[in-house]
């Protein structure tokens, strides 16, 4: 691990005082490794978003310096729980559509940076080693390479509390896996194992637990010798299946309007999830994923719905 001299762009970036990120630089690959750690509840807090966006902006301001951006989580068992549920609750209670929109835009600004990373000469890889929900999963999908460790699970639970994932879930699921899979994932609120996501083409590589770091190294070192061609090809891929900032932004607007209509019951369900996240942080075996299953089962019993049999296979 060689840290460049402090008079170039990257050392300046590395020297910033980050509270929620840990940065490492590998000079032979021009690889910037970002480990996220929004303790104790790993989610997209305003401060966490601001730090990540600062990193992305710094990379943009130093074109050519970073060839590989690799993101993972420093929190054991959790990649990202998604949006800051307490902040949502606050803004919904205040009926503040504009602030919800602004929060959503901050999120899609990160998504958009990743979407256009190839144009900036940067290949992006993400390693998911734990639970990732809602906005956490949305944040993973724009990466060029998505690696999951086998025990990691993910899903979009928003529909369980009458919302939907509004920061790119539809766009990226449709692009990568098609309408049917997108409908299944977004409208059901179900959770998916790493294997299930791999079979749906949303994950590029599934490795056994503890093998993620080795897989990362292998992926980056195999891409690096053919990086220019890969990046141009990825730009072509995005031209072939375009996603626009305007479309992402319009979806955020719809999401903000939908959030304003949440009821006390919906907020209570959000709070149940938040409590479950807290329990997981406290070391409990059961966390948000188990709570989602319970909420879904409660809902199913309450509404006499069917089609929940897959839950039993995920326990």
């Amino acid at each position, binding site marked *: 691990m060689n840290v460049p001299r402090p008079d170039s762009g990257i050392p300046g970036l590395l020297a910033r005082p980050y509270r929620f990120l840990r940065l490492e630089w590998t000079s032979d690959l021009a690889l910037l490794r970002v480990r996220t750690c929004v303790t104790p509840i790993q989610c997209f807090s305003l*401060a966490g978003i601001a730090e990540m966006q600062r990193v992305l902006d710094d990379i943009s301001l130093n074109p050519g310096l970073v060839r590989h951006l690799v993101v993972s989580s420093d929190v054991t068992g959790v990649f990202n729980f998604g949006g800051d549920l307490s902040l949502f609750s606050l803004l919904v209670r205040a009926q*503040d559509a504009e602030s919800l929109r602004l929060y959503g835009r901050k999120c899609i600004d990160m998504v958009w940076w990743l979407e256009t990373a190839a144009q900036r000469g940067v290949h992006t890889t993400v390693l998911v080693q734990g639970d990732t929900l809602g906005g956490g999963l949305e944040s993973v999908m724009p990466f060029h390479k998505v690696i999951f460790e086998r025990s990691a699970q993910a899903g979009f639970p928003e529909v369980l509390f009458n919302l939907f994932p509004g920061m790119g879930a539809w766009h990226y699921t449709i692009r990568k896996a098609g309408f049917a899979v997108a409908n299944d994932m977004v409208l059901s609120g179900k959770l998916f194992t790493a294997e299930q996501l791999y079979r749906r083409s949303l994950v590029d590589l599934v490795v056994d637990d503890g093998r993620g770091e080795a897989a990362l190294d292998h992926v980056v070192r195999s891409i690096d010798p053919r990086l220019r061609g890969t990046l141009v090809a990825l730009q072509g891929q995005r031209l072939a299946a375009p996603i626009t900032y305007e479309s992402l932004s319009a979806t955020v607007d719809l999401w903000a309007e939908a959030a304003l209509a949440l009821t006390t019951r919906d907020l209570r369900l959000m709070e149940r999830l938040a409590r479950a996240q807290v329990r997981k942080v406290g070391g409990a075996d059961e966390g948000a994923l188990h709570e989602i299953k319970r909420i879904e089962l409660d809902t199913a019993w309450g509404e006499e719905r069917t089609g929940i049999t897959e839950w039993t296979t995920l326990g």
Partner: protein
Amino acid sequence: MGDFFMALVESTDQARRDFETHPVALGAVADGLSVERYRKLLLELYQIVWHFNPVCAAAASRIPDSHRQVRYFLYRHMQEESGHEQWVGNDLEAIGVASATLPSHRPSASTLAVIGYNYWTADRRDPCSVLGMMYALEVIASVYGGAFASAVRESLLLVGDRGVSFIGSHATMDTEHMVHLREILNTVEGDSARQAIVESALVNFEFVTRIFAEI
């Protein structure tokens, strides 16, 4: 971000998260509290609620005519909050603390400090600062109150609202307190008033966190 409400949310977001993620608050929301600790907490909260309206009244009496809309807001809010300390008293009764003992309870240093600060800043800094106190307390009550009430109810095997009527009282959407607070905050002009509101919210988040930490 655009308006002052969002600026306040952003400026104080880390203080809110510091409260939310303090180990005691985390544990309380996840698993509730023992009856002894819940008693201690309510005894401290009683003092804060008891002084809430007098602080608002002190601020209202000093608010200049240029911010008369804040004064009228405070009048209405004081009316709504009047008597809420009795809810805390009832909850204390439900968990075995007689109301008669409340006057003899000695508040913690953190409770005295935040109450003292709220009077002082309304008197000496800027009376609009009272909105910062209201924001912090309303966020804690409405965003975390419901989950906290559920956890306490489960851990102490309480039935219905008995024992948790106060901490669960701001958690429903129908109170619209946050809506009205956002609307009034967005009318506040002037750097001095806005800075005083942000400072007050930060101080209140900080001291409520300490009160939780000390129980």
